[in-house]
């Protein structure tokens, strides 16, 4: 029986990548905390994970011709939504720096959790291989 890494690792690699992307979006929000007219953004994590699982299960649409539309790329950006501001600001900026920072920290913690899961998967595989 061959070991399939995709099956063995489960959803955690995708979760880790999704967390990374979210960290990037939140970092961009905070870098633009003082940019007039900037609209804060965030990713729809649920949609992102659902798509990752769909891709992993092989039910996603595949492109066999150059003329086919790339549905996966369009999907990647449609998960990027705009945040609803809690209070309006004069310059049209919707970034709440403190909230963004707490979300960033929370995301970093979730990243660590996903990492821990992935790490345990690897150590489990290692144990199985060495047979100790």
């Amino acid at each position, binding site marked *: 029986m061959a070991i399939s890494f995709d099956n063995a690792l489960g959803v955690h690699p995708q979760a880790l990548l999704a967390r*990374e992307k979210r960290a990037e979006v939140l970092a961009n929000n905070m870098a633009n905390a003082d940019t007039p007219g900037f609209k804060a953004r965030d990713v729809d994590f649920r949609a992102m994970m659902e798509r990752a699982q769909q891709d992993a299960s092989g039910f996603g649409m595949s492109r066999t011709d150059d003329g086919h539309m790339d549905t996966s790329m369009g999907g990647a950006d449609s998960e990027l939504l705009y945040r609803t501001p809690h209070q309006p600001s004069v310059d049209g900026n919707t970034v709440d720096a403190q909230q963004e920072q707490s979300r960033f920290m929370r995301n970093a913690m979730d990243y660590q959790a996903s990492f821990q899961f992935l790490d345990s998967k690897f150590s489990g595989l290692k144990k199985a291989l060495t047979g100790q």
Partner: protein
Amino acid sequence: MSLGSIFDIAGSGMTAQSLRLNTTASNIANAETASSSTEETYRARKPIFSSIQQAMLSPDQQGQAFGSEEGPGAGVRVEGVVESDAELQMRYEPNHPAANEDGYVFYPNVNVVEEMADMMSSSRSFQMNVDIMNTAKSMMQRILTLGQQ
């Protein structure tokens, strides 16, 4: 890679905020720089920020995504520094060496209280960007230890 671009994003934020701090320093330093004509008088300077879109960084990827909106963005940049056109302060000081024929000198339109508030805001934003960079660094260091135990 997403984590790598966080360094660019936070770095652009730090550059922009330090430039803002620079203009604040210049404004406060010149708050009392008097001169005899409106043209020569120092005027408060303000940086203009705008966000960078990812498509600008990688033009080869443009149009590839069908019907998608612009990407997550790639930081902030300073469009330019503009001089405030608020009214200058005209004071009657006949004994001032730079006084004009009528005995008036012109002082810059720098609002020192506003500048101090701006200074605090930019230093906080700078700190926030440093925090982001530190967090991204620890995330990156963590991923390097994957599967080591």
